[in-house]
């Protein structure tokens, strides 16, 4: 039985790889369905647009060879088992040169031994410090973790709102547990009390009992933190349904469109949100228009960030004159600075925090939702927002 199956695979494989001569594969493993799908599809869009740019320009010219780029994209379902299988397939079967993803800390922790061993660059959105650890030199991160922006952003918001008692609900997983520490200490530093905290299991939709519990503790501000986009929308909606009139703040990955879609413009009015970059930049708006023309609907702000990192890898390949020597490529990538991307200038950071320089940094901003749209009210750097 097993043997027949294997024979079948071998023949399927022979058919599958009979493509053009100079083709290079780039892999993607991200949640394309379920809770994190808003982020995963944004990553996939970023990769497709970046590849489209290159293929339309005649391919990626590295040394004397020009490569046509092919994408192999797999759904991680936000689950470590599926992410490991997908990454094995990308590394050994598709022979991907690098991998966009994974999102989420558990999938990253599960697959990083494989990618490190096989010298594959990954671009993650997972907030775990494992992503930046010295022993995983090929793991890059496109998105700023809460840890970096919690302090400047929260101190601005607390002053602005005069927040005193802050309530928050976190997903009960690695991401949530990491964020809750960062956010609680940032509020403490800003002089607010953020002790009204609870955790929920991913996939939960009814938060009314938990919110009732927090409201009973007399909170004046609610922190949405990094809850998945749809969940954040439900939280805003259910808070308002419980008659909460205080301020709502989002110190976490971009979810504004989903929040607006689920909770409605009225409930979201006055929401303070973290913006991954200054959305008023013309280049950012152009990217967004292009994305929406291509895919319809809305665009999650992770997309231009990943687009930028992907292009930095292509740049590194060109400079190193190789697509296989990962060490040479990352050395060249490390030399890039003030790299122009749609979201602004990108640089590497992280030396003082993790002892490595593989965190992409693009200046971010704070937005305030008014009339169903986030308006930039402050732009930020690593120190402060103003």
């Amino acid at each position, binding site marked *: 039985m097993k043997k027949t199956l294997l024979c079948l695979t071998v023949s399927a494989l022979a058919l599958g790889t009979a493509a053009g001569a100079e083709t290079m594969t780039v892999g993607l493993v991200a949640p394309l369905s*379920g809770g994190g799908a808003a982020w995963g599809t944004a990553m996939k869009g970023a990769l497709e647009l970046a590849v489209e740019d290159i293929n339309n320009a005649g391919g990626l010219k590295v040394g004397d060879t020009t490569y046509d780029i092919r994408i192999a994209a797999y759904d991680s379902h936000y689950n470590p088992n599926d992410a490991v299988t997908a990454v094995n397939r990308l590394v050994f079967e598709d022979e991907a040169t690098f991998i966009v993803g994974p999102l989420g800390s558990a999938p990253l922790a599960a697959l990083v031994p494989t990618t490190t061993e096989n010298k594959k660059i990954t671009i993650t959105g997972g907030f775990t410090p494992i992503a930046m650890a010295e022993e995983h030199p090929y793991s890059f991160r496109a998105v700023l973790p809460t840890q970096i922006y919690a302090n400047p952003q929260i101190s601005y918001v607390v002053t602005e709102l005069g927040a005193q008692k802050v309530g928050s609900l976190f997903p009960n997983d690695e991401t949530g547990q990491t964020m809750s520490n960062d956010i609680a200490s940032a509020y403490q530093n800003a002089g607010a009390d953020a002790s009204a905290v609870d955790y929920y299991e991913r996939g939960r939709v009814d938060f009314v009992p938990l919110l009732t519990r927090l409201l009973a503790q007399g909170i004046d501000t609610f922190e949405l933190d990094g809850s998945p986009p749809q969940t954040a929308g439900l939280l805003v909606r259910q808070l308002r349904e419980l008659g909460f009139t205080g301020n709502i703040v989002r110190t976490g990955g971009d979810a504004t469109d989903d929040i607006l*879609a689920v909770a409605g413009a009225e409930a979201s009015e006055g929401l303070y949100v973290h913006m991954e970059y200054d959305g008023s930049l013309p280049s950012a708006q152009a990217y967004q228009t292009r994305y929406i023309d291509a895919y319809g609907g809305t665009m999650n702000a992770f997309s231009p960030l990943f687009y930028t990192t992907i292009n930095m890898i292509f740049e590194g390949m060109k400079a190193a004159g190789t697509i296989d020597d990962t060490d040479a490529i990352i050395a060249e990538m490390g030399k890039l600075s003030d790299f122009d991307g749609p979201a602004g200038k990108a640089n590497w950071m992280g030396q003082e925090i993790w002892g490595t320089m593989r965190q992409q940094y693009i200046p971010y901003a704070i937005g305030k939702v008014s009339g169903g749209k986030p308006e930039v009210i402050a732009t930020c750097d690593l120190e402060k927002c103003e």
Partner: protein
Amino acid sequence: MDLLTLLVQSGVNGLVIGTMYALMAIGFTLVFGIMRVVNFAHGEFYMIGSFVAFITYAQWHLPFAMTLLITIAVVGIAGALIEWLLIRPLRADELTGMIATLGISVVLQNSALMYFGASPRPMPDVVSGLVRFGPVVFSWSRIFVIVAAALVIGAFWLFMQKSRTGRAMRAVAQDREAALIQGIDVERIFPFAFGMSVALAAVAGALMAPVFSVSPFVGITPMLKAFIVVILGGLGSIPGAVLGGLLLGMIESFGATLFGALVADMLQLALVIAILLVRPTGLMGRKEA
């Protein structure tokens, strides 16, 4: 917020999820009682119900009552067809039937995913605004769920008590052989019961759609909850499903409000395991033959 306010608020919250769980569990337990099939696809019919409501209410702007009727008709007929086509041939064995429903669940969920995409779709409220009784606040949309669900459960109960088909279904659930001897056409009862069971789940989905928005994955949690409710109330017992649903809703609501989410979850499971061990047939179940 004083304690009394908190208790009232929690009570109403519990009632909302409780009635939803009850609606889910009634159908689940009905199919088990009559057909001896554990329907793992039950949650997917909840999901389909919420999509039918989304299309008819949010896109076609039909009145919500009409939406509910269409949901019941569409999902009921689809359920009967599925029973006739896929489950009937496999019913001889409890386990095979159960696995078949699992396959159905995978197919339905992923078809929805392909057709509608993964991102959740918000749906406008049927009734909006807040009700205030002093410090206690409810949203009309949730009160609406309680009332509508109670009406559906009431109608279902009347049907089971008064109608010929309803009585026939109860007879089959009690003793299939005896029902056969009585001249009840069991083969006709099965697709009907299955269709009705999944239509109830679909109604739950349609009612909750404006509250929790709509996506291909909305059925998973209600399915697991229905599972727990049915254990709590007793497999195959319809009053048990109603009681178990309300009880679980209350435990969740009060547990989470008073002690936090994790304690509430643990408490729930510990309680249900304890009940199973002390009284395996649940609160209102009959002893199995």
